[in-house]
């Protein structure tokens, strides 16, 4: 089981971030390296990439504020 965490070091920790869209549904199969969500930080967009292959379990919905390093999903 692998945790999917919000990337660190790509933006100022003070900036508000949220997932703008999950590209996959809870329970979907995802491949390692696939872009599985887009994170918006203030005005910029970042990719959330699957660190492993498996079944996606989404823990945090879109449009909920998240912080760097936070676990937002699991892949099993």
């Amino acid at each position: 089981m692998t945790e999917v965490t919000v990337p660190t070091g790509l933006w100022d920790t003070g900036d508000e971030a949220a997932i703008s869209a999950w590209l996959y549904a809870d329970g979907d199969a995802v491949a390692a390296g696939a872009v599985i969500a887009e994170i918006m930080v203030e005005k910029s967009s970042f990719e959330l990439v699957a660190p492993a292959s498996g079944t996606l379990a989404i823990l945090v919905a879109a449009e909920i504020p998240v912080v760097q390093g936070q676990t937002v999903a699991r892949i099993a």
Partner: protein
Amino acid sequence: MSGAPNIGSGASADTDAARGVSAGMASPGAASGAADSRGGANRSDRLWMYATMVKSRHFEALIKPAYFEGKSPVFNMAKGPIPGEMHLSDGQEPCAVGVCAHLRARDTVTATHRPHHVAIAKGVDLNAMAAEIFGKASGLSGGRGGHMHLFDARVNFACSGIIAQGLGPAVGAALAAKLRGEDHVAVAFLGEGAANQGAFHEALNLASVWKVPAVFVIEDNSYGISVAKRDCTAVERNSDRAAAYAMPGHFVPGNDADAVHAAAGAAIARARRGEGPSLIEIETCRLEGHFMGDAEGYRPEGEVERLKAADPIPAYRARLLDAGFEAAELDKAEAEARAAVDAAFAAARAAAYPDPEEAFAHVFA
């Protein structure tokens, strides 16, 4: 032709131009008092320019948080009290005030997708302008136009969002003045990117062929969204392009309201004398993104900080203090300017939205 100051334009008596320096009044107009001993803008013009720049900047400062309301945590452009795009004019205020100091209500101004500083300097009704941006029934067009499509017939101001398309109408307004034997002028504001658009070249050529009282003012803020001027413009200076259209070209460096005032004074006086159009190119800067939400990844590291350190408004205040203005006088003008904006925003917030059926009105006159 360099930007030599024009002393005593000799314009005809102008009954509708206010000459006060209170921030709430219209621009001094072409018949403003004698130039000061340095040959530049006179005292009342300079105070008006300073107060109007402060007013303009404060307007943008109130727009910003209002624009971002409802657009959090995800920046969704459709949300909040001000949806859609927003193009702020922070940094470009000297361009607007230096030109509009010479203009009357009867002079026409066309502006762009980044219009607020120009509208304010032209004397557009501040309350109706704020209401329009908030989409309220009391807005300039009852909410139909929004921030990029502000029209105020009382002061002959119009703006729209298609690059360079304000130039043709300025030529037409200038021609109307000429045909009527009036000495009004038309000024078209444009960005440096617009100087590469076909309409720019056609309008300048036509203005010269018809010898109309038009002035074209390029606000060079270095960027057309993400593309730097040097990467898309064949010439170093757009003012050099004036020669291709047989009109004077003024290059105004340094984002300096007094220098803009001098160049604009010369161009506008020339136009009023019936001698034809001019092109002015002003080096200015864009302190914010192209539109609110622009991540500005294309700007070099440190550039925005450098530009903010050279903010034209505090620099102008320092110059006025050096020139003998009293701090208290400047503070008073600033306070009045800000109060007018605060009142306009409060009124806009409180104003009612239009009846949706009003969408169908005014399609035809």
